[in-house]
Structures are given as C-alpha cells and as structure tokens.
C-alpha cells in the first residue's frame, strides 16, 4: 500500500519505532515487618535491536522507578523534554501492606500502584528520546540494579515542590521576557488552566467513587434485611419473591462495586496521571525560561566586560587590557552558545508539547471507550437480573 501523504508516512514510521511493550505484574512481598517491600516483575517485549533479546524480565521495587525518574529528570528536562512523573509515594498505604494486612483496601492499594507503575514505564518507553537513554535500557534489562538513594525528595508533595520552586525562580526574574512568539505564553496559560480543571474533575470523580461505595454498603445491608422479611412472610409465593428480591439486591451491590472500581481505575487514575503530567509540562516551560535567563545574564555580563575594557583603554595597563579582551572573547562565545541553547530548547518544547497533546487525546479516548464498555457490560447484567426476577413477582398470588 502506497502512503499518500507525508503525514501518513511519518505515522507509519512512528508505529514501527515504538515497538516496545512493557508490563508490570506479579507484585510480591519481599522481607518482613517495616523493612519489607513490594517487588514487581517488569517484562519487556520488543523487536528493537538495541535490547538483548525479544522478551525479557527483571524484578524492580518502587524506589527503582523513582530512581529512574530522578536520573531522567536531571538529564532530560534541561533539554525541554517532558519527563513523565512517577506515581506518588504513600506512607499510609505502604505501611498497611508491610504490616501484612490482607484486607481489600490493601489489595486495592497494591493493584492501584502496580497499574500506575505500568502506565508510568509505558509512557517512558513510548517517548522516542527517553527510549534511547541508557538509564532506561538499564532499568529494563539489568538484573541487579543499584538501589536508588535520593528518592526521599520524590514523594508526591516533593515532586510538586520541585516544580513550584522552578516556577518561583522564574517569577522572581527581574528581566521580563519579551515574547516574539506568543505561542509559548498562550500554551502555558492553556496548560495551567487545564491542570486546574482536571483537579476539579478529579475531586468530583473521587466523591462519586465514595458515594458509590456507600451505596454498595447500604444495598448489602438492605438485601439482608429483605431476606429476613421474606422468611417472615406467611404468603408462600410472596415469601419466595421477597427472597429472590434480596438476591437481586445482592447482585446489584456487586454491580455497584464494579462500577465504583471502574470509575476509579479508569477515570480517576487517568485524571491523576494527567494532573501530574501537566505539572511536568509546566516544568519544561520553566526550563526554557531559565535558559533564556542564562542567555540574558551572559549578555549583561558581556556588556559589563566591554565597559570595563573601555575604561582600561584610558589607563595605561597593557596586561590588564589583554586579559579584558580575552574575557570578552570568552563571554561572546558563551552568549552565542546560550542563545543557541535557548532556541534549541524552544524547538524541543514545541515538539514535546505537540506530541504530548496527541498522546493525551489518544489516552483519554481509549480510557473513555474502556469506561463505556464496562458500563455496557454492567447494564446488560442488570437487565438479566431483573428479567430473571420478573416471573417471580408475577407468580405472587
């Protein structure tokens, strides 16, 4: 089949290069008590020649994922790259798991974390530049990975603090940037707005999940009460119908549970991911500002050096004059370099943002389809339950 446009050609090329699939599975508790931790199996499947084989797997713990992020963000964000942020630390959640509680909320916590880690690493490997990073390859392939040490700072709050610190530095800049191209300003505003909106949306979905869980509990309690009433009923057919109703309500409770899980895992987690990602996007805009600032400061230093040289022309100190000339040359080079850096980072940021938006649209779409399909299933089961009950109700005499 002949591709008919450049776009299509690029798309097909893109499909080929992203032939990397990573799964995070099999959470297993290692060790006991407060030193215990969860180890996950990270399995990679790829036809790319850069890997040691087509399929392979390693075991990683949560701090390894955080360590990877730390390495990547130090290197890549300087270039204006959007580095996907990892899921958040949770002292409470993890403590319960360590202490060995097997209750449903701990199970849910581990599953939530596993899914979030999977999404995180899948986003990293889908990024063309990050995939090339040796740290990423090491993370996927190396059997014994040295433990990451600086992960204390990387709790959820810590990550946000980092981003906000960068923003503060930018805000305190004395020289205001004169944007020749309003694209950056507009886009930044867009990103900030969207982040705000997603936060609100996330809070609403959270609230919905909680209310559904409450409904579950109340439905289960009601079902039991209905069963007791059915037992008490002296009309045989009605007694039977009431017991059947109790069973239907029990099934409804299960449906509500599943719906709540769907709301949460599909919807709420998607929103949480993107709130973090938008923070990372803001971060790379800030990196560009810093690059600009560096350039401006170099220009101002160059200016001062030129003024100093001019003064020395009148004094009669030939060595100092020579030194001043050398410094001017050095700073001229720097100014050129920083200007080039600034332009390059600007281009990268633009490309990254466009890629991000595409990925986001794809992500949202696929999650929403998943959500709708789960809803369809749920509705069909509901219909079946009530259709089974109806003859029982009609049989009352």
């Amino acid at each position, binding site marked *: 089949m002949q591709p008919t446009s450049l776009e299509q050609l690029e798309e097909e090329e893109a499909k080929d290069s992203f032939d990397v699939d990573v799964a995070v599975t099999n959470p297993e508790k290692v060790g006991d008590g407060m030193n215990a931790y969860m180890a996950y199996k990270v399995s990679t499947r790829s036809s790319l020649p850069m890997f040691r084989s087509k399929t392979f797997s390693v075991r990683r713990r949560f701090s390894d994922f955080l360590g990877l992020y730390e390495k990547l963000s130090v290197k890549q964000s300087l270039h204006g790259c959007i580095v996907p942020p990892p899921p958040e630390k949770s002292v409470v959640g993890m403590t319960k798991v360590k202490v060995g509680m097997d209750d449903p909320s701990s199970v849910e916590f581990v599953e939530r974390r596993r899914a979030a880690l999977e999404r995180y690493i899948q986003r990293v490997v889908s990024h063309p530049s990050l995939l090339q990073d040796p740290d990423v390859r090491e993370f996927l392939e190396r059997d014994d990975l040295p433990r990451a040490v600086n992960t204390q700072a990387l709790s959820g709050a810590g990550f946000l603090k980092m981003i906000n610190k960068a923003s503060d530095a930018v805000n305190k800049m004395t020289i205001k940037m004169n944007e020749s191209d309003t694209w950056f300003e507009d886009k930044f505003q867009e990103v900030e707005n969207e982040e705000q*909106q997603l936060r609100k949306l996330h809070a609403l979905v959270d*609230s919905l999940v909680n209310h*559904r869980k409450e*409904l579950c509990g109340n439905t289960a309690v*009601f079902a039991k009460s209905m069963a007791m009433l059915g037992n008490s009923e002296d009309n045989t057919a009605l007694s039977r119908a009431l017991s059947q109703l109790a069973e239907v309500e029990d099934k409804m409770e299960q449906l509500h549970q599943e719906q709540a899980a769907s709301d949460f895992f599909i919807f709420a987690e998607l929103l949480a991911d993107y709130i973090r990602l938008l923070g990372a996007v803001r971060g790379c805009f800030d990196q560009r500002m810093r690059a600009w600032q560096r350039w401006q400061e170099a220009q101002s230093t160059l200016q001062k050096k030129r003024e100093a040289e001019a003064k020395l022309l009148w004094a009669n100190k030939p060595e100092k004059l020579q030194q001043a000339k050398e410094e001017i040359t050095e700073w001229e080079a720097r100014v050129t370099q920083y200007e080039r850096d600034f332009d390059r980072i600007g281009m990268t940021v633009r490309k990254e943002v466009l890629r991000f938006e595409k990925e986001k649209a794809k992500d949202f779409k696929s999650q929403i389809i998943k959500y709708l399909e789960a*809803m369809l299933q749920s509705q*069909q089961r509901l219909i079946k339950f009530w259709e089974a009950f109806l003859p029982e109700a009609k049989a009352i005499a």
Partner: protein
Amino acid sequence: MRSVSVDLNNDASLLIDIPDALCERDKVKFTVHTKTTLSTFQKPEFSVPRQHEDFIWLHDTLVETEDYAGLIIPPAPPKPDFESPREKMHKLGEGEATMTKEEYAKMKQELEAEYLAVFKKTVQVHEIFLQRLSSHPMLSKDRNFQIFLEYDQDLSVRRKNAKEMFGGFFKNMVKSADEVLISGIKEVDDFFEQEKTFLLDYYSKIKDSTAKAEKMTRSHKSTTWNFFYLFIFLTLKLGKLSDLFEKLRKVEGRVASDQELKLTELLRYYMRDIQAAKDLLYRRARALADYENSNKALDKARLKSKDIPQAEEHQQQCLHKFDKLSESGKRELTGFKGRRVVAFRKNLIEMAELEIKHAKVSNIMTGSHAERTHTLLD
C-alpha cells in the same frame, strides 16, 4: 404511589381526590375535592382547603371512636418533609458565587424537580388516606369524615376543641401498653393466635427493612447528584460525551426515584398499616381483658350476693363487645392480608419492569455513544 393500595376510589357514589396543593413556606395547603351521589352531602361536588394537621385530627378522632374499635384504621399520612431539597437549595445559594450562570441554572432546575417530587409524594399519600376511608363500608359514613370533606370553614377551631375533649389520652395508652398486653393475653382463637405471632414478627422485620431501604434510597439519590456535578464539569472537557453522562444521570435519577416509590414507600406504607392492624389486636386484647375482669367481678358479686344483675349486665356487655371486635377484626385482618399481597405483587412487578426499561434505555444510549466515540474524539 397509587399501587400501595390497589382498588381505591372505584365507587362512584363517593369519589375523592386532591387535584391541587399549594406550598407556603413550611405549610402545605391541600385542595380536597369530592364528587358524590350520596344524599348525606349537601352538594354533589365541592372542594375545601385542608392542612396536614386536619388529616391528623380526622385520623385521631377515628381511632378514638369506640364503634371503630374492630376496624383497621388507615394509617395517618406522614408530615410533609421538604428537609432534603430545602437543605440543597440553601447550599446552592451559598455556592452561587463559585458557579457559572449555566451551572447555577441547571442545578436550580434539578432542585426544583426534586422539590416537585417530594411535593407530589406528599399529595398522593394524603390522597390515599382519604380514599381508603371512602372505600371502607363503615368509615365512609363517619360524621367527622363528612365534616372534613364538606365544612367550608377553617377546621383548626374544631381541631382544638377535639384535642381538649380527648386530650390524646387513649393514644398515649395505646403506645405504651401495646406489646405487653397483646403478647400477654391467652388466646382461645387459633386465627388470632396466628395473626398475633405473625404481625408482631413481621412488623419488626418490615420496620427494619423500611429503615434500610430509606438509607439505600438516600445513597442512590446522592450518587445521582454526584453524577450531576460531574456532568456539569464534563461539559467543559468532553463536549458531546457529556451529553451521554447527562442522559445517563437522568435515567439513574429515575431509577432511584422509581425504587423509592415502588419499594421504599411500599415498605413504609405497610409498616404503618401493620401498626394499625396491631392497634386493632390491642383493642381486642383490651376487650378480652375487660371481659375476663368482668367475669371475675361477676364471681365476686355472686359470692357476696351483691349487685348480681349489674355484674351480669356488665359481663354480657363485655362479652358482646369482645365478640363484635373479634368478628369485625377477623374480617378486617383477612381483607388486610389479601390487600397486602396484591399491593406487593403490583409494586414488585412494576419495579422490575421499570428497572428493565431504564437499563435498556441506558444500554442503547451508551452503546450508540461507544460506537460514535471512535470518531467523536479524534
């Protein structure tokens, strides 16, 4: 709502309905409309304004009428309760500053719908009370019932007088001595023995179920509200898809209110009706106790050879009253059984059919959106 008590308002000789009602701050004014062919009424068709307290007055006078001791007096309608929508309306007012004009308008619309639903429910429950009276061969002829329907002045003056006369004495007695007396009596009649055992047990179970159903319904409604906030918000993000969520929420809302009407209201109504049946059992037990006491008094009189004719007379009266109550009671309780089963059947069928209908509608809407989403979000 009508299906909590089937077969009402069928007799053309006395037709009652509440076509209209007004809500003034805390008070609801019902318009009670009567159409009749009976000569006991002054006009063939007329309407009067009545308040909730008037219904309570009527109920209490019926309960306190000796002649009706052998009847199940239809339970009094509960007080109109606008607590929930009023609270939400208040919150809406507080949150007005943080909402867009559209959001506020939509929420207000929703709240007004909820208000209306509560309003409709209270009108119907008051209507059913009157219709049960008009459908009853004895109660429909009650003088106070007629006054309630016809008297075109404010009833509150009459109400106050009645309260002073009876002082609510009997009612308090019933509440406190109820269970003990009914369970303590030695029953000679198998029918009543069975009924007593059944009703006492069933009452406690249905009371529990009613409370749990109410909690479940409240949860269901607040989930729907949550869904609503979510929808308002999604309009910003997902454009066309938010249409689906809004439609789903509306259906979900209907499911919640259908479940409330068909299940929660049904349980609530029969819980009160069973209490009324228990009250009948109480009165009969009281009559039996009186009869047994009169026997003892007669024995005593015979022993002392004093006042024998009075004692004999009294004993005969007590026996007669007890027999009358038993006969009437048996009839009423048998009728009640049938009525309850028919009502449950009707409501459970209707509930199941509505659940199926709503789920099918939701399914179709979701299905068509799922298909379109493949092209929608590109």
